[in-house]
């Protein structure tokens, strides 16, 4: 019971921090979407606190971290009246009572989520990538009150996990201090609020039954589900990459720069989790460029908004990856990890073929990733036919949203291939397999913009 209250308490603090950020940027949208994004942002701000304290050389005691959290909470909510009004605006349109026909989905998805949440709480961190990196550092941070601790005096041959982002280390430290011996229960909040976010986004366009069906398909992606209770960087990275895309495309639709700024911040959070994310952000930058060209945006606007969108994730990269690695007592030659022979493109094609042949469309593809990909392909073909028929009949198909989501899917599909080519350590069966998690939320959200899916959904009475 104490554990549940602690999780709720920390989630409330995360919500308050996130609310401050969302209110400051005046982010608009559905209530549940904003609540979910506020909590998720708060979690990532939490993840920055111990790391920042480490940079400014403050001992990582429980008290110091608690003070750090309190200070950040106050700073994020300095404009208390504005935030209060923003909160009232969120709660005004909050509908807590589900419709009867949503309940079967909520019950099943709730059961699947609960079982994952329980395992996340009950089991120790199982992934070797974590026990040989973030978790080991976090454990000794508690004992030695610093992230630069005796773990770095151990023989580090055959192990690069200690050089990975301090994001999970930071979260582990906070939750261990909060009384969870294995930390990691922060992932329960990430998963829960991500599911709420996705459902809320799907509901923007779709009937609750269709949205519930798509959410069910998403939670049943076996590999992703496994990593919803086994802590690693990939699931949370996929969460923030999805949020980045969502707010980028929200910017396209609403033309408010605040959405672009928030997209860039979410891209920064994704970068904090996985340091190769800026590469994918650059690919998203190409979509932004397409948008600018379509909208005939002036060169100066194009320049500063483009720099903003790419610059914030790169700033995160510099502060959280580059700086962190240079702060450590052990050396990690980053440049040696990069493919030296970039002129030879054969490995690029090989990786592309392997991703398709051994992962996405292999005999075990449904065991790895469920049916979301096939559902996507089915409706993609249907949409292509629909657009083609509309074109023949000279009807205008105006909404470009589904095209943008398709392009976002391409950034992951091609970007993950590119990462595998540039960084040979990113092996197919571990790194790439998990990097593909970013694909599935995008596929599901695309389906909510798919014209055939929307037409079908509109035929169902509310």
């Amino acid at each position, binding site marked *: 019971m104490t554990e549940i209250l602690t999780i709720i308490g920390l989630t409330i603090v995360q919500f308050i921090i996130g609310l401050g950020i969302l209110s400051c940027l005046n982010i608009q949208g559905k209530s549940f979407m904003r609540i979910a994004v506020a909590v998720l942002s708060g979690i990532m701000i939490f993840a920055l606190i111990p790391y920042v304290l480490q940079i400014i050389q403050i001992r990582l005691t429980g008290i110091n971290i608690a003070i750090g959290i309190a200070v950040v909470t106050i700073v994020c909510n300095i404009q208390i009246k504005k935030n209060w009004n923003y909160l009232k605006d969120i709660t005004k349109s909050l509908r807590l009572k589900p*419709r009867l026909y*949503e309940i*079967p989905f909520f019950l099943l998805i709730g059961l699947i989520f609960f079982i994952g949440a329980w395992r996340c709480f009950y*089991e120790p961190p199982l992934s070797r990538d974590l026990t040989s990196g973030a978790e080991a550092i976090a454990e000794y941070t508690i004992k030695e009150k610093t992230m630069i601790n005796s773990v770095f005096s151990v023989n580090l041959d055959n*192990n690069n996990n200690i050089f990975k982002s301090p994001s999970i280390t930071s979260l582990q430290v906070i939750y261990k201090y909060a009384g969870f011996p294995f930390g990691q229960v922060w992932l329960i909040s990430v998963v829960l609020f991500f599911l709420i976010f996705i459902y809320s986004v799907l509901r923007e366009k779709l009937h609750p039954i269709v949205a519930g069906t798509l959410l069910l398909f998403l939670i049943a992606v076996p590999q992703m589900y496994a990593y919803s209770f086994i802590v690693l960087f990939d699931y949370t990275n996929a969460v923030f990459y999805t949020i980045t895309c969502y707010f980028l495309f929200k910017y396209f639709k609403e033309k408010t720069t605040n959405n672009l700024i928030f997209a860039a911040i979410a891209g920064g959070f994704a970068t904090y989790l996985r340091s190769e994310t800026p590469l994918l952000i650059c690919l998203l930058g190409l979509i932004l460029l397409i948008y600018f060209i379509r909208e005939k945006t002036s060169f100066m606007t194009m320049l500063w908004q483009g720099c903003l969108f790419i610059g914030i994730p790169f700033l995160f990269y510099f502060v959280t990856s580059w700086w962190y690695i240079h702060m450590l007592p052990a050396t990690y030659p980053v440049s040696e990890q990069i493919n030296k022979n970039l002129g030879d493109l054969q490995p690029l094609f090989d990786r592309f073929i392997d991703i398709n042949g051994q992962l996405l469309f292999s005999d075990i593809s449904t065991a790895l990733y469920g*049916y979301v990909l096939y559902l996507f392909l089915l409706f993609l073909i249907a949409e292509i036919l629909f657009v083609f028929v509309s074109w023949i009949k000279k009807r205008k198909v105006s909404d470009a949203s589904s095209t943008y989501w398709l392009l976002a899917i391409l950034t992951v599909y091609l970007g993950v291939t590119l990462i595998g080519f540039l960084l040979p350590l990113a092996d197919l069966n571990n790194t790439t397999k998990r990097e593909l998690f970013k694909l599935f939320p995008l596929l599901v959200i695309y389906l909510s913009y798919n014209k055939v899916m929307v037409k079908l959904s509109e035929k169902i009475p509310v």
Partner: protein
Amino acid sequence: MKKTKEIPVEGPSLKILPVTAPAVLRRGNVLLLTLGSSVIIFLFFLLIGNMIWFNDRIIQYWKEYSDQSSNLDIEYRKSLLGKPYTLSVEIAKGMPPQYKNNALVLMPSQRYFKERGVDYHVPIPVVFYYYTGIKTVWANSKDASKATYCFTLENGAGSIEKISDSVRLKKLIALFNTYTYDL
């Protein structure tokens, strides 16, 4: 303004609000849609991959949950890390606590253990340190020559011994290196 029908009864009159047709239809729709939701969930499980996943994972995890919820002991939960954890902890017990902080233990490989009848995937030094607080080194590392203790297994009995001289250390490194280390 909705019309109400008055029913003559003894005492105060009873007003009955009419049930409108759209409300009935709406209720019917809701029930139909709820049935639709259930049918979709049924169809979801007709997909063989979903059914296998649900049976192998969710149902299995649910059964485990029933047992786990009555056993919250931390050490028991740590044992879910498997043999690498439990055997590492057993090995660490052989180290006198006063030397624990400064010792560097030379560890043989998984194949060394296997040849002696023990199935033990030797964790890499960081993981061993995380499990036990003892620093280890593998014989194939350039730091192997800094080892001050070593772990050996003879006739089913394991022991941590202090390495007395460099000749003994070199012999142990050579012996352990005859077995390949697996990550």
